[in-house]
């Protein structure tokens, strides 16, 4: 005590670190929300190429 120093002791606690918590899901009303229909113009469809075409 009274050593003119500042001492910080961080303890190795048996029960000191959140053992259970949920995932962080952004739920407040103020969150940025995305419309399910963004209203983009459809310009075409890409047909995936088969392995034979790629090779």
């Amino acid at each position, binding site marked *: *005590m*009274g*050593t*003119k*120093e*500042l*001492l*910080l*002791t*961080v*303890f*190795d*606690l*048996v*029960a*000191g*670190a*959140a*053992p*259970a*918590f*949920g*995932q*962080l899901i952004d*739920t*407040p009303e103020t969150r940025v929300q995305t419309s399910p229909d963004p209203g983009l113009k459809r310009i075409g469809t890409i047909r995936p190429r088969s392995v034979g075409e790629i090779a």
Partner: protein
Amino acid sequence: MALETPAGRVFLIDAGGVRAATEAAPDYNAGRDTLAPFLRKRGYQVIDGLLLSHVHGDHMGGAEWLLQHWRVGQFLDHGYPATAKGMSESYLRLRELATNNGGTYRAVRAGDVLDWDAALQVEVLAPSAGTFAEPDDGSHSLLNMSSLVLRVQHGENVFLFPGDAYHAAKDIAPQKLKCTVLTAPHHGFHPDTSSFTQLCGPSYAVVTCAADYANNAGTPYPRSPGRFSLEKYGALGIETFVTAFDGDITARSDGRTVKMTTQRPRVIP
């Protein structure tokens, strides 16, 4: 965590948790079984102040025992409203106990300066005044992010205590986050390690966590936040200490330098 000031005062920042007895182990109370023995060993008869970062059991669990059995000069917290969704009866009891036993209770806000020791500048960085103005959902993450963030400066050294807030609040000036010693937010579980940490720019990081959290499998969080922190902080050139691997960790500041010591040689299971 215990902060012993140059003038010989002692302040506790958070109070750990509690655990019920099982067949394999007796019950545990961080206040009774870890903090009080430390205080007695160091010769303290009163606790000058007890500051809780937020209303979560792993930070407040040991506080009730301390407030019942020790004289605590001042009890400080982030002022979470008594009627809010995330508040608990056990937490409200703490505020009552603090004043019933001759101490004071004060909810602090960003900008408050605490008169803990003439050799220190102690400043509250968060939460800001309007944080709890609106009703909230009381979610775990909301309470984490509204943690009381404390900055303690001793000469050229700065210690930062962000509780479980692992994103910097927008209204905290970045230069206020610059620190020598960072007590890692959210026990090293924070997913956004690099940006917050880079703002803080510490020389040392101290992580309080257990070695393994089996329940984290399948979540975005690591099972071993200690290993995660050693890797993430290490990549930023920060010397990192983990209670699960190093035991109790002490940082000793003379105002110019900080000397870190650990209870035992590092063992990573």
